[in-house]
């Protein structure tokens, strides 16, 4: 077997549709031995099956079925491997979707643009994957788009909004007018601007800031295996809330130590490990009540497509989709673009992709001039999820007022979002305190 090709052509004649005469080959790129890559693949397979069953992609006079090619990038281990994997298929595919590790995605997308193959990134958040490339050298990098997750800078905004929500909960439920906030961020460069921004916002008066008190910042290694010393220091600083910026494996020891020590401070922010369905198992059950930014959650109708997709994915794979499963939306976006273009000619499809206005599973997906998703209410916002009763449930946006000054009556939220709950041991610890 020379290549691992998953042929998903579901013959349309069985449904009385148009006879499939051509195929569109899409390479699904990801670390296929890791969960992130597997979710890339499952998301794409779900979309391809649905599209093929519904008649495929009709462009002009011709109809196409989708054929997926699995591209195991092994990018967690080797960037060179990732580049070779893409190079191996780039001459045989019309489009590429996926990618996870930022440095590898940088290198893989260089191969894609060299061959003029559109690459829809679904897994790496760094702004610099598109900013400084598409806008600086459009002719070379016009083939790159991002469908998930939201870019890092928007992810930062989202995490701060979650912090604001939790601060508000402390004010309302415990009557603490000026909650004390500690920052625990991994020692990586992406977190640096976020930490600086959060430190300023915490103490700034509303509406620009949170009107809270910043008690300190702790920066463990992204690969730390214990965070108990940092958490003990946080407890000694009398923090009510811990703002987290954790993307690496340190997220698990943080959740485990935080729950095990019953640190009397609610944890909210970014914790990529807490986005996994295996979070509670990984933390020995101590990760309950942790809250993080995410894009998928059970039972929240971000759009009309969100719940069917999430449930369908859980039925198929047995776990909640990671953000890499947004290859599902990537394929639908490609379908719509090819149909609008009426051809597979790359420049025409790129032009059509730029006109995308697609209601996907994570929101209304529209690309800006850098080919990144527009973030905000009515577009893609992301979610705040909290681990409650063994499940990751969305608590944000719910009654969110994006512009309280100019639009004081405009509230935004998704059906199915539940209120944020302060962890019971935190509630108990701070209940007597009233400022």
């Amino acid at each position: 077997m020379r290549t691992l090709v998953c042929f998903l052509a579901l013959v349309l004649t069985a449904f009385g549709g148009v006879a499939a005469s051509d195929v569109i080959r899409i390479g699904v790129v990801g670390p296929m031995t890791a969960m992130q890559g597997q979710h890339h693949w499952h998301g794409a397979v779900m979309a391809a099956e649905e599209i093929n069953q519904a008649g495929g992609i009709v462009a002009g006079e011709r109809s196409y079925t989708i054929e997926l090619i699995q591209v195991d990038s092994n990018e967690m281990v080797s960037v060179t491997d990732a580049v070779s994997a893409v190079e191996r298929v780039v001459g045989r595919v019309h489009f590429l979707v996926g990618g996870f590790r930022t440095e590898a995605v940088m290198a893989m997308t260089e191969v894609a643009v060299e061959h003029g193959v559109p690459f829809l990134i679904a897994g790496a958040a760094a702004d610099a994957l598109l900013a400084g490339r598409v806008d600086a050298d459009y002719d070379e990098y016009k083939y790159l788009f991002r469908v998930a997750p939201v870019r890092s800078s928007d992810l930062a905004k989202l995490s701060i909004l979650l912090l604001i929500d939790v601060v508000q909960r402390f004010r309302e439920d415990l009557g603490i007018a000026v909650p004390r906030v500690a920052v625990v961020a991994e020692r990586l460069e992406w977190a640096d601007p976020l930490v600086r921004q959060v430190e300023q916002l915490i103490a700034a008066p509303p509406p620009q800031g949170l009107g809270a008190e910043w008690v300190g910042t702790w920066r463990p290694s992204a690969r730390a295996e214990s965070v108990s010393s940092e958490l003990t220091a946080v407890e000694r600083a009398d923090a009510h809330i811990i703002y987290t910026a954790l993307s690496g494996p340190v997220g698990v020891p943080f959740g485990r130590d935080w729950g095990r020590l019953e640190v009397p401070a609610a944890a909210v922010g970014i914790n990529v490990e807490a986005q996994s369905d295996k979070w509670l198992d990984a933390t020995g059950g101590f990760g309950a009540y942790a809250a993080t930014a995410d894009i998928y959650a059970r039972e929240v109708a971000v759009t009309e497509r969100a719940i069917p997709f999430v449930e369908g994915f859980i039925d198929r794979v047995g776990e909640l989709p990671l953000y890499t499963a947004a290859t599902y939306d990537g394929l639908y976006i490609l379908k719509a673009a090819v149909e609008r273009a009426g051809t597979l000619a790359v420049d025409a499809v790129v032009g059509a992709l730029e006109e995308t206005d697609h209601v996907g599973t994570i929101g209304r997906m529209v690309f800006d001039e850098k080919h990144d998703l527009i973030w905000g209410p009515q577009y893609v916002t992301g979610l705040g999820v909290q681990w409650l009763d063994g499940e990751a449930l969305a608590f944000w946006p719910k009654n969110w007022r994006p512009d309280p000054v100019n639009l004081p009556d405009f509230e935004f939220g998704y059906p199915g979002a539940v209120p944020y709950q302060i962890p019971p041991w935190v509630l108990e610890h701070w209940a007597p305190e009233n400022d």
Partner: protein
Amino acid sequence: MYWLKIPFRFLRSEVLALPTRVIAVLFVAVLLLFPFMTQDTYLLRVVVLTAIFTIYAVSWDVLSGYAGQISLGHALFFGVGAYTTALLNLRLGLPQHAAIPLGALAATAAGILVAIPCLRLRKHHLALATLAFPLMLTGLVFMFPGLTGGELGITRIARLATSRLVEYYAVVGVMLAAVGVLWKLMSSRIGLIFHALREDEVVVRALGINAVRYKLLAFVLSGFTAGIAGALYAHVIRVAGPSNLDLFMSFQPVIWTIFGGAATIYGPVTGVFVLYPALEYLRAIPAYRMLVFALLVLVILRFMPEGIGTWVRERLEVNCPHCRLRNAFTRRTCRACRTELAS
């Protein structure tokens, strides 16, 4: 006709007389003619990367195989070469042909910097000390993200060449030149002293040879060569990032060299040209790729502990017991002194 006889005689007596030399000539010929056999960009890219990693592996062989200065942090030189050429190309706008040698020189300087504190260390102490250097540089990379790009690395580095064909011949040419130069050097007095350093440093000093100078030379040669590999890599991949400095990158030349045969120069060449394409070929079975690869390495090392290159050479050639000259295994008498060869 007379002038034709000279190269023909040389070919017959110096190349065709030994099977391994025939293999080497065929290998170079296939390498140079490869683009005439296929224009597949993937296959060309595989050979290009194989050639770059060959330079890298050979550099480890010089330092650790020949001179016995075990380096487990060789990615330092590779990474310094990659980052320096990337910075010079991107920030100062230096063209590739200027940035690459300067990247190699920076790696040479890194070699001296590593050598100075490590000169008194031996064996596993030295290995552990060298392991620390790429970790330190990784720390610096994250400490100055404005300059180094942090975990994203430096991107949009200029392509090595405008076409894949030019890129192919540029990299393969540099690889052949680097291997050829190091082969000659290691066959000279320098290589002999490196061997002696590895076997018994005290004896080397007792002979009045400045061991420190030769150790330093090993670091310099190795650093420069690994720096060339790193610089070429940055222009081919177009990203110089922290992965250039990680442990995986440090261990790879060790695996390649030991697989092919250490302290031979041809060993790392064999190792990389067998293992790297094999790993690519194993993409056909992605789920078992790394497992099969690891088993392949283990089996080879179990049955060919001196490395596959050395094993093949020992099967194809025998040393004359009298004059030590190598002869093809088919000969019954030595081609120089006519001594009978053991069957």
